[in-house]
């Protein structure tokens, strides 16, 4: 039975009573390690409460007004039906991949087309993984996404039911990308809390693409937590496309942990949503790790997107690169808070961070806070942040070459965004994103004319 949150009670109590009601029945998964975290997590959530903008980390993003709605919590195992044609509409063309579809946070086997995977590789639901691979889940689940100071992670951990599970055994390369299509379907306002776990063992190589869609006009609030582990010499290339409806909001927490000589890259492209908060924490805990963080946000209407990143250099001799770009139009708001943390004795760290924004309208606001917190001396760390308009000289040049004003501006914006899109190493996805970006930029000028 779906549980509807009782909006007469304060937001925090609603979740506590929903937890009480569902605990022992719907919430009891098949896996002991998943269930064992629930009690501690709900207790911590009870202490922390729903974040408000009085907290420094939530200063510019008031998620409490999003949380404070009459959502249903779909806690039953039943998944609503989705037409295959609806799925076809959202799929990326020409993307040859192991496709896995989730509906409201649960893996839908009927719509998925995983195909043949290399030996030992697992792409399944987290619930199944809990039953079939309890040792892997036990070793990694809840180990990276700490809920001590994160109320939304605590909430997710208390209510975890399902999500995507990917396992790549030692020395195995998954050649085709794993393509996750996350769909939200609901007639009523709904809150879902998917939980994903990606484990790439020593020397494993994988690419995971996640696209988030909503097939509903109802208000959707998604509270995702994703944990990723990359073993020594492993390589995980990760992409998130946030293309939900304008009535959708989400808090998305990604915690990645990687070991010696490994590479973890993540690229988040946000094109729509009402309020989106992305928490990204990367911990390179080994020597010669490379962490890459890329993000692009194209704001329109009333969108509010907040990217929080933390690279926690707990080990010496690592490199991290970070580049986030924003284009803000209409009354959209953008927040970026990037932090590079170099722990004592983490010597010889090279960490680069850059945040660039173009603000196109008077109503748009950009809040940037690029931080460095450094406790070791033999390091090279830098950050840069810029905010400005399109370069009028560049536009003049293009116009002198015969481009219309509109074409010139679109081209300039595309050039700005291309730095992020170029980091996509899957051709079909890059084409798809380039096309979407072009459409978006064109729409900026169609309206104003």
């Amino acid at each position, binding site marked *: 039975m779906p549980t509807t949150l009782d909006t007469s009670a304060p937001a925090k109590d609603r979740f506590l009573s929903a937890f009480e009601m569902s605990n022992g029945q719907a919430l009891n998964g098949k896996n002991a390690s998943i269930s064992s975290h629930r009690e501690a997590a709900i207790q911590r959530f009870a202490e922390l409460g729903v974040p408000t903008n009085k907290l420094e980390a939530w200063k510019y993003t008031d998620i409490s007004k999003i949380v404070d709605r009459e959502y249903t919590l779909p806690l039953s195992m039943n998944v609503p039906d989705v037409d295959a044609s609806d799925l076809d509409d959202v799929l990326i063309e020409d993307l040859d991949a192991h496709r896995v579809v989730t509906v409201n946070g649960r893996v839908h086997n009927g719509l998925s087309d995983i195909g043949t995977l290399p030996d030992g590789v697992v792409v399944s639901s987290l619930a199944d993984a809990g039953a079939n691979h309890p040792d892997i889940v036990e070793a990694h689940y809840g180990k990276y996404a700490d809920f001590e100071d994160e109320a939304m992670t605590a909430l997710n951990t208390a209510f975890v039911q399902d999500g995507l599970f990917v396992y790549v055994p030692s020395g195995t390369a998954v050649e085709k990308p794993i393509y996750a299509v996350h769909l939200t379907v609901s007639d009523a306002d709904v809150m879902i809390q998917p939980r994903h776990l990606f484990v790439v063992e020593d020397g494993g190589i994988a690419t995971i693409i996640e696209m988030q869609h909503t097939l509903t006009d109802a208000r959707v609030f998604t509270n995702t937590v994703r944990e990723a582990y990359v073993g020594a010499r492993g390589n995980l290339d990760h992409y998130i496309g946030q293309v939900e409806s304008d009535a959708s909001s989400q808090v998305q927490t990604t915690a990645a942990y990687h070991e010696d000589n490994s590479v973890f890259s993540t690229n988040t492209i946000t094109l729509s949503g009402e309020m989106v908060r992305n928490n990204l924490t990367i911990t390179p805990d080994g020597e010669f790790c490379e962490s890459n963080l890329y993000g692009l946000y194209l704001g329109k209407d009333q969108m509010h997107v907040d990217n929080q990143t933390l690279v926690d250099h707990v080990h010496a001799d690592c490199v991290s690169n970070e580049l986030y770009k924003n284009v803000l139009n209409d009354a959209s708001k953008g927040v970026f808070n990037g932090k590079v943390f170099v722990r004592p004795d983490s010597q010889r760290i090279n960490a680069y961070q850059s945040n660039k924004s173009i603000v196109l309208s008077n109503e748009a606001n950009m809040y940037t806070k690029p931080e460095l917190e*450094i406790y070791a*001396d033999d390091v090279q760390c830098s950050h*840069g942040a*810029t905010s400005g308009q399109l370069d009028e000289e560049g536009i003049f040049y293009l116009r002198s070459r015969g481009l219309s004003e509109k074409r010139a501006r679109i081209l300039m914006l595309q050039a700005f965004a291309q730095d992020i899109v170029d980091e996509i190493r899957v051709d079909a996805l890059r084409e798809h994103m380039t096309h979407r970006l072009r459409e978006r930029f064109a729409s900026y000028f169609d309206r104003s004319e």
Partner: protein
Amino acid sequence: MSQSETEYLEGVASKEYEHGWHTDVESGKAPKGLNEDIVRYISQRKDEPEWLLGWRLKAFRYFKMLMEDEDSYPEWAHLKYVKPDLQDISYFSAPKDKAQYDSLDEVPDELLETFERLGIPLQEQKQLTGVAVDAVMDSVSVATTFKEKLKEKGVLFMSFGEAARQHPEIVREHLGSVIPYTDNYFAALNSAVFSDGSFVYVPEGVRCPMELSTYFRINEQGTGQFERTLIVAEKGSYVSYLEGCTAPMRKENQLHAACVELVAHEDAEIKYSTIQNWYPGNPETGEGGVYNLVTKRGICKGDRSKISWTQLETGSAVTQKYPSVILKGDDSVGEFYSVAFTKGHQQADTGTKMVHLGKNTKSTIISKGISAGKAQNSYRGLVKVGKNAENARNFSQCDSLLIGDQCGAHTFPYIEIGNPSAQVEHEATTSKVGEDQMFYCHQRGLGEEEALKLIVNGFCKEILAELPMEFAVEAKELLAIELEGSVG
């Protein structure tokens, strides 16, 4: 350079922290503790007009509210220290002799000797350096030079208390107009119990003929200093103000919570420079040392006005200050140049706020942090571009240098953009002294310490160049002294 100036600089450049002694001037001191009676006592002792007492009391009542609310204490900074016990501080002390002097002759020899040891021979400075000095010893101004010359131009340069009595209309108009007493915890405290400070008023069209300078000195055991400085530059005027500080050595923590307000009207320019070299606490244990928790803010009220902050922070156990500029007038300019040097157990959380409100406003922030030993050094800044601040322009650069592997350097810049025509750039770097640079210096025959001094001076050069000449030389020496013992 004249002989006496050289001596003066050499005095400052002496190696140990030699300003750590305690002058034996008996003080007229208020009992420890903070309450409404103390506020009234301070006001009465200073012979203040009724309205000023009223303002203090309003501030005090507000502060009382803050004291009762534990959450109101500002704990967000990247600092770890024991909160000062506000009830264990004496809020007023005046040298025992009468509070005002007409000429230097009336100043007791003991006080003059103190200044001598500090390296500020007032008499000689008067003739040789062209700097008027309003020396604040504890809380009451003891000597003011060059007053006459300034008077000719119509420049008012006097202690705050004097100004409140002689020019109440100017003080009343501007006091709290930039930093209201509700601004923050320490601004509220200062507004209630401020002891004295400097007041500068530059009339319309006047270029102040000399650099104005105040030497602050915390002297009496157990007295926090709560200066209040107000500088008003009328239309088309210019003033450059220097502030420099040293403090005697002692064990208990000393609280220093000053407020500095600057008001620049149309086409006016204010240049405010600070050298702060207060007792940083025991270098081994971190014990003692001054808490420097200061609110400094200027407003570019008129069009085309300019405010520039330059600071060299080398002392204090804890420093928390953010000299800020509100760019209200169109085409106004704000600047912030800072070198913060921390070593031993020192902690600094400093930076600036540039609030762009007017059109075509420009701001520049250049901040250099140097961290050695077990010190923690943070830059925290805000660049805010308001909705109507067309064509606002900001450039920020924050560089940190780390010397030794147990120190920390941190950057927390906030950038808030509310206007699309704004162009804002921020860049920051953190690194240690390059081995290639050291190698080059060694190769040219410089020892390790000399090389480090050279490199650090080069790192800070663009800031030091912003200081008035007298300060620039002193600053360079000061940095060199601070660096000693940092190698290895």
